[in-house]
């Protein structure tokens, strides 16, 4: 199963892992990544993040990334849980999990999914400041460079 959920609520990493492995009982390798809100302790002016998305397109885009990962790496299952709304420092933002026969494909697929999620899934982050103002986060060219690695030999 290749699933994507967008939610405002927090997620439990243990539950997300259990759900993933239940979809891939024969898998010998599971890799997961959790993205969190950085603790801005050196920048006390930032109190948290607000995440906006494009309902419908976000799920569709992530599902397409998961389907590409399945074809490219032959993985057994993958899941994405991504939060939206207001988040505080150290909150979970995203869970990406991959289950596969062997670890190589699982590691690669997890990076592949995360790289394309960051560069193509329609989410927008805003930093919330203690002053009550907010600042939109700019896209990083490093993220595009990471994603472009995958198009080198055999993007399918």
């Amino acid at each position, binding site marked *: 199963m290749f699933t994507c959920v967008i939610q405002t609520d927090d997620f439990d990493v243990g539950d997300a892992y259990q759900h993933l492995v239940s979809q891939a009982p024969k898998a010998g390798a599971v890799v997961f990544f959790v993205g969190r809100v950085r603790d801005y302790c050196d920048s006390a002016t930032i109190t948290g993040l607000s995440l906006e998305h494009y309902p419908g397109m976000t799920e569709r885009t992530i599902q397409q990334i998961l389907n590409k990962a399945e074809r490219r790496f032959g993985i057994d299952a993958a899941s994405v849980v991504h939060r939206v709304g207001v988040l505080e420092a150290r909150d979970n933002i995203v869970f990406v999990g991959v289950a596969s026969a062997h670890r190589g494909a699982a590691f690669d697929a997890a990076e592949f999914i995360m790289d394309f999620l960051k560069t193509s899934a329609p*989410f927008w982050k805003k930093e919330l400041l203690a002053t009550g103002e907010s600042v939109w986060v700019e896209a990083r060219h490093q993220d595009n460079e990471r994603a472009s690695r995958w198009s080198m030999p055999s993007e399918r």
Partner: protein
Amino acid sequence: MINIRFFGQLRERLTTESIELVCDVPISVGDIKNELFIKSDAFSVHLAQPNVLVAVNHEYATVDTLVNDGDEVAFFPPVTGG
């Protein structure tokens, strides 16, 4: 009628979440932009930025993509999720 939506910083700069455009179809995304540029200075400034992305019916599109009656077009800045 075509439903046009805006997201992220672009939505804030335009102070508009969505508008409906009545026009002859099919119409290209590029021509939709031109129609919007005429509507207000805010559109001609912010929508014309080279980094603005576009989707038609939840799929990434280009200025050449053709749009039909009932379609949904979205304009938004580079994405920053994950």
